[in-house]
């Protein structure tokens, strides 16, 4: 099975029904994508397929319909994505385990809605759990990223 992850073509010898989450983590060693629940309830495994946020625990390897981007492929280390810059500016992360998924979801939100209200943010981000309760700073960071991206 061949898939493109972060711009690189990979061949994987795994059953087609293996969720993309585990194909990435255990098959390719791409660990920025996280396991939190396995049933699309927490959002820790959020990645992009063709630029759209999806829960990688729910996509079978054999059904992967496009190019995969994980947090590792969102930006290069010298030029972080504006969402990542905003995350750092607001010091959002605590334990940090959910933040890859939060960031990937936020990037998708801003690609569709460049100026989200608090309510828009709540609606889109409520599928991503954070047990450290970083929600207020996530909200602030998304607003900051939105203005950075609008001004860019």
């Amino acid at each position, binding site marked *: 099975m061949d898939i493109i992850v972060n711009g690189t073509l990979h061949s994987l010898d795994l059953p087609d029904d293996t969720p993309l989450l585990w194909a990435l983590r255990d098959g390719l060693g791409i660990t920025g994508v996280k396991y939190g629940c396995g049933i699309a309830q927490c959002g820790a495994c959020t990645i992009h397929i063709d630029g759209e946020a999806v829960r990688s625990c729910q996509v079978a390897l054999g059904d992967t319909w496009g190019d995969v981007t994980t947090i590792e492929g969102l930006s290069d280390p010298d030029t972080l994505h504006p969402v990542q810059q905003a995350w750092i500016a607001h010091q959002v992360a605590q334990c940090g385990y959910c933040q890859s998924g939060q960031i990937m979801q936020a990037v998708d939100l801003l690609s569709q809605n460049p100026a989200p209200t608090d309510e828009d943010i709540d609606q889109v981000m409520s599928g991503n759990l954070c047990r450290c309760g970083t929600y*207020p700073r996530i909200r602030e960071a998304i607003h900051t990223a939105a203005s950075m991206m609008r001004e860019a």
Partner: protein
Amino acid sequence: MGKLGTYTRREFLIASVAVAGGVVFGVRTYRANLKNPLTAALGPGEAALTPYVKITADGITIITPRAEMGQGIHTTLASLVAEELDVDLADIAVEHGPPSAAYFNGGVVEEGYPFPATDQSALAEFARAQRDIPAVFLAYQITGGSTSTHDAYEKMRRAGAIARETLKAVAATRTGLPIADLKTQSGAVVLPDGTQLAYTELAADAADVELADAPALRPKSEWRILGKSQDRVDVVAKSTGRAIYASDIRLPGMRFGVIRRSPYPIGTIRCFDATEALAMPGVEAVLDIGTAVVAVATTTWAAMQALDAVTYDWTPPTYPADTEGHFDVIAAALASNRPNSRQRDDGDVEAALTGAATNGAEVIEAEYRVPYLAHTTMEPMSAAALYQNGSLQIWAGTQGPTVARREAAKAAGIEEDAVTITTTLLGGGFGRRGEMDFVQNAAKVAIQMEGTPVLLTYSREDDTSRGPYRPAAIGRFKATVQNGLPVAVDVSTASPSILKGINDRGGSPASIPDIVPDFTISQALWDQPYGIENYRVTAYRSDPLLPVGFWRSVGATQNSFFHECMMDEIALAAGRDPVDMRLDLITDDPSSRVLEAVAEMADWGTTLPEGRARGVAFALVFGAPTAQIVEIEQTPRGIRITHAWVAADVGVALDPRNLDAQLISGVNYGLSAAMGEKITLSNGMVEQSNFHDYLAMRMYQAPPITTRILENAPHIRGAGEPGTPCAAPALANAVFALTGDRIRSLPLGDHVAFD
């Protein structure tokens, strides 16, 4: 007593006991007498100046003895060293320390002493001053109880100062200049002519230098780093997917294990049939590890599928099969004549309650209940392990690495010296990663899979429905009210024992005899700074039920709910404003000030629009007085939390922005549990398994939270836990103010609808 006086006395006490006890822990002697765990791993030209500072030609590493589980402790502890060492946080690396007695946590021991935090008496101060001594023997290296900061506050600054002065001594020897002429700045010794000698160049000679005197610590007025908000040292890694948790450890040839524990917590496996599972693609082994079954495969997914194909025969549950049965056992303990502790007994409660019949005082009484709770850290439990050539290596996000090493050795049946523990970042802790089960189980797997590295993962379902849990508990009070104030308050509480649970599971640093009272049962109930003439607090320990352990803020999670809802009920009966009445009763100045602060922040007493209401709560918890106000609104979709205000006194605020983050985190953790979290049983099995039925707070439910940090309290304290206990009572009191319904059991969401 001033800070200086306290310090001098403590040093004296430690030195005097050291002579008698054979263990010396002092600033001037600890390099020689407590084995520095870094020394063995050093190469030529490298120096470990204290257990907290390692300098090589490549750079400077600060070793933090506490686990980074989100609370920002790597940053704060590194700041303590950096302040004295004169290095910039951006220029140093920060690592978890290996298991070692040198990294003991004196703060945890102090928290267990039977003196309330407000007690500044000579005896209480004496006990606090001696706290380090038993900790060394017990080799505590525990992260918990919001103790990391005050344990490290002097130790790590002193480590930085010793390292700095040692490097200056090396520079003085090399240059022939007097030490007094040398300065330090940004990782270098600066000569009078401006020449800079980098610490990394001086380090090779530093190991031979013995300082004559312990350098003095810089006064607060000269701080450059401490007291100011710092960027977290892990924030970039955690915003780019590069932070490594235990579940991200990848080793050549690694296999992936998933565990299936008994669906009856505490139960064990009688037998199982793995024939079908072993025939599945990618599945390499199905192991019997005594208490559970572990499938090992080429992916975690294949191992999960394999476990579903195994047929199991589990031993039946040994506890009541349903939730009500558990509360019956706890209620029986409460009704018994066998208190576990009675740490407060002011005045004569019996006489005051009896007298109420004749003196016209109003008597009120009520019973409160809280359910078992899961921790649900975002990262499910995991540990990587490799056993080869007689050595066992374990990578785990553990809150207690020294105990973890002992337990891994025991589980593997090998000597402790053959075990190495590497502490990774923790994907949330909240007490769950103070448990040893995932380390013990990873060790058992590694022994059976000799030569193959295995990453052991708990599924979310296993983690949620097998425990350990925050105990279920019952609180009961009876009070008399006269002339606007309580005259007598009799509070009692009962729950299964956390200490016994942890002790029996091998999580305790030293065996705790059953006879020792479990002060976590009465934590934050007996030591509240209210001056009430007749005031009695009694705690009862029920028979063991489900496995129970530490959960963020421990006993305070239930006891502050009991106590502060009680205060609201008393205020209502007394016809008093709940803030005013508390202020009349509180006898501790920093405590009064946090309550005044939160009332001012929220503009308490202002008239609210129709459909809005507020509740207040106060708690002195882990030494930090904390007050909280929660505002709610009735909406067509249910009750919505519109704002929360929290004020806490931590004595010395080392990093204001991180303290803000910790208080917000604590409040949300508490509000989450108060609204929707519960663990219940039927047919002996836990009914919740994952985030679809264990209802953790989501973003749309998270209110704006305003924080304020005060610095009036006499000791420095941590803030990881103090935000949590007041959340449930403040919310419950707000619901009463809004609806008139006094809800006396959690979660509140079982009784009212939340948006």
